[in-house]
């Protein structure tokens, strides 16, 4: 076999990104996961429009490559924490989509029993620790997860995710300092979708190269294309290895874009149609991977069309199953406040007088 043939046969089995090979099964898995998240979020948007989902609901359409690339690079035992834009991450981790949708709908089978909603998704089985609603709050908490791995020497790494807004909170830098001081196994991931609610990065940050934000703590940083799932996977893999090897924390800035507003009530008038279109049609992570796979002869356009239909059906079924569930039992109001509910823990059990 000539070198050229070898290359062709190698290419036919998968894709390469900067020297890292991805076999066809992995590529399909990453694609399907991203597409599932996209369709799930669209369904959530619809359900919100129908007033079936209440309150705040932050969708991650456009950011799927970050969710999926990170998940594929990590071990199931690694910890993951994020902010309130959490649907994509928990779905990528492999949590039950019906439970996630039921949570959005405030149903009994919700992943946190209907007590958290969109912003507070948790799955302890998947080592997914929220779903934290106060901007930046998850970073000191993630520091604690990393600390626990250092304390127990359990080989786990914590992926602590924040946005370009959250990275300006003071607690983030307190955490950077301690993580570096004690060489804790943490990958700080900044999902830079370029807008903190309606405030663009350059209006809020003196240093807009967010991967440099760890420099004064001696935390190395790298910027990755967050619209390319292979780039995210590859570099997250390197970052996780760095943290796991005892080298201490590392910072990964994934540059991405959210197609929808900050939350469902945000018409996103602070950016131009052209800008959104440029990202949406020019850099979409799902279309990009499909294109790469088709060009490499790993799949056909037909296949992706069928897959999309199938996923849409799955998501519809998920929504239907979730909606069919009852609301939480009223008795749930009084559970899970304390682990050790001692006498008098509930002095006011919902009665008048």
């Amino acid at each position: 076999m000539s070198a050229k043939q070898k290359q062709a046969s190698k290419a036919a089995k998968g894709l390469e990104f900067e020297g890292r090979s991805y076999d066809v099964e992995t590529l399909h898995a990453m694609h399907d996961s991203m597409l599932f998240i996209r369709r799930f979020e669209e369904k959530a948007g619809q359900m919100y429009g129908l007033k079936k989902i209440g309150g705040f609901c932050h969708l991650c359409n456009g950011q799927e490559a970050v969710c999926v690339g990170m998940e594929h690079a990590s071990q199931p035992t690694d910890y993951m924490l994020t902010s309130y834009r959490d649907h994509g991450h928990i779905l990528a981790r492999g949590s039950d989509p019906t439970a996630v949708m039921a949570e959005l709908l405030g149903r009994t089978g919700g992943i946190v029993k209907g007590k958290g909603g969109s912003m507070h998704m948790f799955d302890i089985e998947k080592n997914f620790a929220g779903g934290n609603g106060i901007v930046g709050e998850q970073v000191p908490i993630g520091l604690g997860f990393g600390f626990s791995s250092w304390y127990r020497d359990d080989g786990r790494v914590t992926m602590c995710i924040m946005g370009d807004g959250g990275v300006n909170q003071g607690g983030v830098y307190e955490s950077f300092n301690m993580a570096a001081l004690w060489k804790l196994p943490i990958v700080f991931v900044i999902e830079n979708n370029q807008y903190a609610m309606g405030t663009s990065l350059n209006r809020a940050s003196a240093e807009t190269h967010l991967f440099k934000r760890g420099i004064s703590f001696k935390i190395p940083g790298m910027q990755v294309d967050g619209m390319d799932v292979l780039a995210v996977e590859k570099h997250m893999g390197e970052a996780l290895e760095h943290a796991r090897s005892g080298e201490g924390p590392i910072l990964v800035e994934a540059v991405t874009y959210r197609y929808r507003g900050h939350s469902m009530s945000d018409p996103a008038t602070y950016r131009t149609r052209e800008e959104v279109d440029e990202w949406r049609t020019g850099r979409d992570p799902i279309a990009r991977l499909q294109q790469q796979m088709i060009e490499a002869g790993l799949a056909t356009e037909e296949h992706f069309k069928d897959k999309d239909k199938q996923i849409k059906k799955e998501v519809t079924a998920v929504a239907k199953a979730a909606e069919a569930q009852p609301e939480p039992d009223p008795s749930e109001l009084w559970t899970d406040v304390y682990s050790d509910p001692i006498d008098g823990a509930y002095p006011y059990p919902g009665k008048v007088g």
Partner: protein
Amino acid sequence: MSKITYREALNQAMCEEMERDDSVFLMGEEVAEYNGAYKVSQGMLDKFGPKRVIDTPITELGFAGLGVGAAMAGLKPIVEFMTWNFAILALDQIVNAAAKMKYMSGGQYGVPMVFRGAGGSAARVGSQHSQALENWMANVPGLKVVMPSNPADAKGLLKSAIRDNDTVCFIENEINYGDVGEVPDGEYVIPLGKADVKRAGNDVTIVAHSRMTGFALAAAEELAGQGIDAEVIDPRTIRPLDEATILASVAKTNRCVVVEEGWRFSGIGAEISARIMEKGFDDLDAPVARVTGKDVPMAYAANLERMTLPSVAEIVEAARVVSNRA
């Protein structure tokens, strides 16, 4: 039994629990090499090493959050605030994370940890370092709030707090650190949520916690000289409150004074008074009286500081008022 100080009792509690359970560690500013700003952690670094007794940078929000995360991951952190005044910087982690995590994760993630340190008024340190904030913490479902008034309680309650599977705000008192008392050696635990009758009496109930328990006992001595037999109850745990013990006492004395160092507005006294009104109204022969810190920030000058704090004389006066002896 040994005669030891309040700070030594706290130290003993932590050391015993750390020997008992490898997942317990102590973290805070100056807790290790300096042996504690108030010497509560004296000798612990030598005993347990730098992995379990950890000096932090001055970053209350950060290390409070570290404790929350470590507790969610299965460790049992003791996070020391040099004083509770500085815990205000960490309130997001205490109120929004620690207290709510169990509920908002649908029971999946508990936060079994202790936030501890000195609360209440110190001496001549001005308004930012002298205040009682226990009512802030006690207002939040999901938190437990514990405040020992003497060395034995300090040991027994701290051991229980460390073993507890919820987040416990353990508020010590700086002025009490040097108090000496009889403390049981070795295993000695006091269940959380149980008040203690510090002095039995029949004429009037005085409810007082932390440093004010001592003031209430001194007032009871004076009242005894005036023919009023006061019962002094120390709730010890502010949340959950052992209302049964308080109500039983009021059912006997029919009169009650509630004492606290903190501000009157929405204070612990307001809560206790309301409970007595709601559940013991028919037992009362007089309205419940509150003796509290004055509604001003703490001043530096010695006379102003004295005036701001509740005094034994004010407690005596309040007891006389509710006893129709004023």
